[in-house]
């Protein structure tokens, strides 16, 4: 049994390296397909990063009347913070609001001139509130409006921002759905390409298979060597694809970091290294073995 197994492995390996041109072509095609499929994991990481960035930058501001007593403002802040829906509350005083504006617009003489024209500090103190989930802003706004502190609230800018917030989140939800669909589509294409590539490689061995049968080889002996040959192609393609991912993530890291505001492609590759390697090996080995099995079965019949 062990001897037969060793012979099947040896025969598969010999088939692989003695049909070097066909093997290289098969490995090349499989590597490209595995590379594209694995890239989805990195793209998913990038997409999650972008969504988190958007969430981090989304908040609502509750503007407070100028005469609002500080202790009531702090009580309101405390009560809002205690809500389950709220993840963060920051108090921005009138002075801070003014300083921020000046800091951001000091290069713009028109805006700075307008501030001077108005005279003094036209800004209101505010509470900047960040919800745990984007669809909780409405509840938070309603809570504040109905609370005992509604009299110190000048306005809540949720209603002006609502359409933009909802648009952004519906866009990210769409991106996630499309990503999932594209992922499924690519996996399906991966299955088809793998199967057809291996079937094509085995198709040329039709004559050889009939000779093997004629000299008394059992179906499993014949099938085994082709399955091993397919698995070697899958293994080589997985490793080649991993190398390609490494080179790509290293080479494009700087550009992607600039484009996606700090997302590191290389770090994402490194943090997903073992998962990617595992998935690639699993896909490469199991699919090529299965494709070989089905392709040889046709010839054996």
């Amino acid at each position, binding site marked *: 049994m062990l*001897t037969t197994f060793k012979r099947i492995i040896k*025969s598969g390996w010999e088939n692989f390296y*003695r049909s070097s041109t066909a093997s290289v072509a098969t490995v090349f095609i499989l590597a490209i397909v595995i590379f594209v499929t694995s890239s989805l994991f990195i793209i998913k990481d990038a997409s999650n990063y972008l969504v988190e960035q958007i969430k981090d930058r989304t908040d609502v501001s509750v503007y407070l009347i100028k005469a609002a007593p500080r202790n009531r403002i702090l009580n309101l802040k405390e009560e809002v913070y205690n809500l389950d829906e709220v993840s963060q509350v920051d108090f921005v005083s009138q002075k801070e609001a003014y300083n921020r504006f000046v800091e951001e617009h000091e290069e713009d003489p028109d805006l700075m001139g307008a501030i001077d024209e108005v005279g003094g500090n036209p800004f209101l103190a505010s509470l900047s509130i960040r919800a745990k989930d984007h669809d909780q802003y409405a509840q938070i706004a309603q809570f504040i409006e109905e609370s005992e502190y509604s009299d110190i609230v000048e306005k809540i800018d949720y209603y002006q921002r609502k359409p933009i917030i909802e648009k952004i989140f519906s866009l990210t939800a769409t991106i996630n759905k499309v990503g999932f669909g594209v992922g499924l589509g690519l996996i399906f294409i991966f299955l088809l390409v793998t199967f057809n590539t291996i079937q094509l490689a085995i198709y040329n061995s039709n004559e*050889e298979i009939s*000779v093997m049968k004629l000299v*008394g*080889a059992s179906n499993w002996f014949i099938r085994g060597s082709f399955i091993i040959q397919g698995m070697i192609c899958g293994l080589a393609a997985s490793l080649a694809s991993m190398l390609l991912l490494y080179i790509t993530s290293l080479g494009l890291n700087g550009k992607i970091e600039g484009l996606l505001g700090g997302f590191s492609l290389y770090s994402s590759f490194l943090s997903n290294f073992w998962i990617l390697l595992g998935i690639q090996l699993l896909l490469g080995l199991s699919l090529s073995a299965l494709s070989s099995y089905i392709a040889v079965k046709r010839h054996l019949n």
Partner: protein
Amino acid sequence: MISFENVTKIYHGKKDESIPIVAVEDVSFEIERKEFVSIVGKSGSGKTTLLKLLLAEQEPTEGKVFFNNKNVHKLSSSELPDLRRDIGVVFQDYKLLSKKTAYENVAYAMEVIGADEEEIERDIPEVLKIVGLSHRANHFPAELSGGEKQRVAIARALIHRPQVILADEPTGNLDPYHSVDIIKLLKKIYELGTTVILATHDKKVVNSLGKRVITLEEGRVIRDEEKGRFSF
């Protein structure tokens, strides 16, 4: 040992399945152990079909084919490899595995039956010596001449010490010099005690043997002579 009982094989045309093509019709004969039998006839007379039927590569439309009292077409797919190890086959187009060397082609036939390495290393040089190919053991089929390829095929057929050797037009692709060589080799195998069935349309070869000749014409046996000659 081998028995064909009223065997008929009808193919159906690929273009028009309703047109039957009769390859062999109502063929009956027996072959005993240690016989050298030539099956002769023009191309398309049914020689190769008879060999394929014996190897259970094809099913007869009617009739039965027995090998060692077993109906070969009733064997299960797991029993077929055993039948094919008892019957060594030599083809006109050699049917060698192109990605294996001469040595490996012969070794493959032993590996598939689970022979141990010692046995393989002992028997292959011996059989390659018998067919005169020791010096070409590590060459691939593409690097061998037609005669040498046929010798590898014979070595492979012999390696299991089969009870029967089927040679289907073994000299069909060879020049006269190599043809004589191959026939001498088959005679030597026969003299060592193996039954040989030679399918050929080579008149000179058949007449030089002086052995039993079964003559086919349009799929029917028209002559079966103990010391026959090729005559139409």
